């Protein structure tokens, strides 16, 4: 009788252990599937690359409009340099970048892209730590992100330069649980 009870106790104990291990395993599985991630995004890198070629409204002294990439290197070389209309090159750079990214990403707490942060800085070739900040643009509130997508672009400064200019873009995406509306309906149906 006692031996039977012992065996029954053992069986119940074994079954309990199996159930507990299975529940823990299922919890890990669910967490693993739903993990939010920071990822390098080709789309954001392509956006940065396209932005570098954007023709701004800042004209050089020979009346030629400058591209964003040229404004970045000019702003880094001399922060007091001016456009033909008298604005500082760095201010023109910030204004043009802000406008381009606001229209391209359409950040807002009710949209898919909640916020973005753009950092432009000079750094060493191998060391990624910023040596000199050129521009830092933020839009929106960078909290409670479902995921963070990033992109980066390098502006080289010539063979004899001790470093490069790094342009980093981080975008805070809304989570699937957030109710978001599309900036446009996204369809091409007539």
């Amino acid at each position: 009788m006692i031996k039977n009870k012992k065996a029954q106790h053992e069986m119940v104990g074994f079954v309990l252990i199996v159930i507990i291990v299975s529940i823990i395993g299922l919890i890990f599985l669910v967490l693993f599937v739903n993990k939010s991630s920071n990822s390098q995004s080709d789309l954001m890198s392509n956006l940065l690359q396209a932005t570098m070629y954007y023709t701004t409204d800042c004209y050089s002294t020979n009346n030629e409009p400058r591209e964003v990439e040229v404004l970045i290197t000019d702003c880094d070389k001399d922060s007091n340099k001016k456009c033909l209309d008298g604005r500082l090159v760095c201010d023109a750079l910030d204004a043009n970048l802000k406008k381009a990214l606001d229209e391209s990403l359409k950040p807002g707490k009710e949209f898919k892209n909640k916020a973005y942060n753009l950092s432009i800085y000079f750094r060493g070739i191998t060391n990624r730590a910023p040596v000199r900040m050129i521009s830092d643009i933020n839009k929106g509130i960078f909290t409670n992100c479902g995921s963070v997508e990033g992109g980066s672009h390098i502006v080289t400064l010539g063979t004899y330069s001790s470093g490069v200019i790094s342009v980093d873009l981080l975008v805070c995406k809304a989570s699937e649980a957030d109710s978001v509306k599309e900036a446009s309906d996204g369809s091409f149906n007539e």
Partner: protein
Amino acid sequence: MNIKSQLRIQEMAFMLVGVVLFFSLVGLIGMGILYSGIYKEANRLADQKTFGAMVALADSPEFSCVSSKSNCIDGDKAISLINKTNYVKFWPFTSLRIITRYSAFNKGYNQMIKCSIANYPNCDLITIYDKKVAGEIASSNFIAFCRKEYQDFGNLQGRSYDKCEIGMIVAGTEYKNPKSKT
């Protein structure tokens, strides 16, 4: 003794059957969670394949910029491809469009100014082709949309320069619907 050992064997057998059934149920639930979005995954892979093809498209001879800029589409080349039916079977997309400037990104289709030879470059959307497939996923990628612009200084003097905007290339692929027979 025989009865005792037989009982033990029976106990072990029942326990093993119970454990196997239990783990089978757990495995089935796990597989159900992992593979619940198989059509969604198939569409995501098709989307990824389209994205890769689109990135390569901007650097193809039909669209690439003369000044060797990467990820750049030459608007003057793109506008000449409108209404050319030769390319409908050349690219693996159901539709191919280019949005020429960022101010049009958030416009609806009906609000965009459709490009033609007459109104280029003061327009928003170049439609290279559209096979009008029912059930299409559109993938998009940012590109630099560049064209030659003339700067007039007066007195018959002027120069041309590269004017570039942030644009978007939009390509369609057919949507795999679990309810469709194909």
